């Protein structure tokens, strides 16, 4: 019997999916570790534990004490906030995982850019500036249009395109406010050259330093700014085969440069007819409920694959289902109190829609990008082609009426 330690933040969307995947494996015991104590931790000390997500020494002490009683064989970190603690404890337990250094790099876009630069991985031209320095008070080396970015936030939060110095100055002040609201300890911010073209997301698993690309998602909605909301993901990619090979190759180069070796990765690349640019990677799988868009042979979910790979399985022969599949992340159109969504029944009735999932709760306060970080919900669809899936999703979205007061 093997024991899997799942580090799972209390704010996750993914508890259910990982619990279901672990339940499929009768010879695996699952221990859930979160940054806050479960209400039932004292009744179930073998399965529900609290571990610091902020203090490495404390986290390792907590996990080593637990490991004395219950031997841990594999470690998975779920969502951004758990990736680094997962690397800490995996290293303390000498369990295969992305290294701490590699995960630290992915959690700071500035360090990531510098490491990619040192390894000559194609990426946008960039400049790191102290958060205390407005862009108009520094020697700006990046041409317009450019993109201003925080180092540590995710989900396009705080990412803004600027076409001139006035827009950049305004975006800087917005970014500083967002960093303060998030209590971020970022010391710098990034300005990058804006890359005109399409964008793809790469879902993969590293195993012994080798990248297995599980799928490439096309993002059909143009991401030209001024904000960069995640909207629709479609798979399989309709890019030419040669382009997909180049995308996989660039991703593998970036993983080598960053030292990511064992565990899931979610990367983003921009491209056009002439070139590809590596945008970023997270040492985790796709976020939110989006993993529901992926199904693999033998009716396996992404979480099944991640768990099996963490337990030592060679996941290099994993194949996605044949059908095209897609998801739309429904963004908050405006700030306010979420009251609900009408039209779900009609939208769900559209052929090809597999699920409409509203994840926001009634009376929840919503904030749109660039400061917000909450989706209202998700539309999932399948079809024969990605184009058909996109049409289905667009049609379903038109039926939805989002009520915000």
């Amino acid at each position, binding site marked *: 019997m093997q024991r899997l330690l799942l580090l799972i933040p209390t704010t996750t969307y993914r508890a259910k999916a990982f619990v279901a995947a672990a339940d499929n*494996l009768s010879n695996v015991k699952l221990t859930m570790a979160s940054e806050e104590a479960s*209400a039932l931790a004292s009744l179930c000390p073998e399965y529900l534990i609290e571990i610091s997500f902020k203090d490495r020494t404390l986290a390792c002490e907590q996990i080593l004490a637990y490991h004395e009683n219950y031997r841990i064989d594999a470690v998975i970190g779920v969502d951004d906030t758990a990736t680094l603690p997962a690397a800490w404890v995996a290293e303390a337990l000498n369990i295969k995982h992305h290294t701490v250094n590699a995960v630290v790099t992915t959690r700071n876009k500035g360090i990531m850019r510098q490491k990619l630069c040192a390894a000559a991985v194609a990426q946008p031209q960039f400049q790191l500036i102290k958060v205390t320095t407005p862009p108009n008070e520094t020697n700006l080396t990046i041409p317009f249009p450019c993109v201003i970015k925080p180092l540590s936030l995710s989900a396009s939060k705080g990412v803004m395109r600027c076409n001139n110095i006035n827009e950049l100055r305004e975006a800087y002040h917005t970014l500083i406010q967002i960093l303060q609201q998030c209590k971020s300890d970022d010391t710098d911010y990034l300005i990058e050259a804006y890359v005109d073209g399409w964008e793809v997301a790469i879902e993969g698993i590293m195993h012994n330093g080798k990248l297995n690309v599980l799928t490439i998602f096309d993002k059909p909605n143009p991401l030209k700014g001024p904000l960069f909301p995640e909207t629709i993901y479609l798979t399989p990619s309709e890019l030419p085969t040669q382009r997909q090979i180049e995308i996989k190759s660039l991703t593998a180069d970036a993983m080598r440069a960053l030292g990511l070796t064992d565990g899931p990765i979610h990367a983003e690349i921009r491209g056009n007819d002439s070139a590809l640019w590596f945008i970023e990677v997270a040492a985790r799988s796709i976020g939110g409920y989006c993993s529901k868009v992926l199904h693999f042979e033998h009716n396996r979910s992404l979480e099944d694959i991640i768990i099996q790979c963490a337990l030592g399985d060679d996941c290099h022969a994993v194949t996605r289902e044949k059908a095209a599949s897609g998801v739309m992340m429904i963004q908050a159109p405006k700030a306010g109190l979420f009251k609900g969504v009408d039209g779900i029944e009609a939208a769900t009735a559209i052929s090809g829609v597999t699920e409409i999932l509203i994840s926001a*709760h009634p009376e*929840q306060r919503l904030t749109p990008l660039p400061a917000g970080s909450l989706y209202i919900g998700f539309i999932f669809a399948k079809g024969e082609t990605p184009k058909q899936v996109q049409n289905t999703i667009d049609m379903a979205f038109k039926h939805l009426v989002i009520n915000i007061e």
Partner: protein
Amino acid sequence: MDPMDIKIQAEPTSGHDEECKFTIDRPIYPNGAVFFGNPSMAAGSPLAEVLFGDEDLNLATLLVAEDKIVVNLVQRPGIDWRTEAKKIATHIREQICSGEAAISPNIKEALPPSEEIKTAVQTILEEEINPAVASHGGFITLLGVEGNNVFIQLGGGCQGCGMANVTLKYGIEKVIRERVPAVGEILDSTDHASGRNPFYQQSKK
């Protein structure tokens, strides 16, 4: 019935050479689940008897639930599931074609009455679980017991909480199963989408 009309999918468990799950295209133990931890428990259940009785297989444990069978063989080097799965699938097909119940009805009959299970579960909820989840503004309601299946609902801070599933599967279920082994499925009837004040709000990533 042509035995080959019965579709069976065998899925060896990765990382566990001795284990394989079989999914059958029809129920083999309708509305029931039973775990055979050793051959003596198989007496009276024809499918379990034949699988434990096959000396070539050398079965360690067997789980039969609805349309699924999970077989664990005694650990030995070089288990080849291409061969072993065929033997097991043949036993399963023969059992289904016989028309005989695969699992002894006595197993279900030996279960305590629903009312007894209900009382035991209610006591656990009131004395152990609800006082604990109350610290998160939550509560668990026992909706009822059908056979040995327990229906519960999560309310208050538990409704829509990002960790509700963890609390259910790795807290509530573990405690109930440990205290009341006769319990079958534990089913959550909560509408989590309507939770107005979940204890742990979900964030985007």
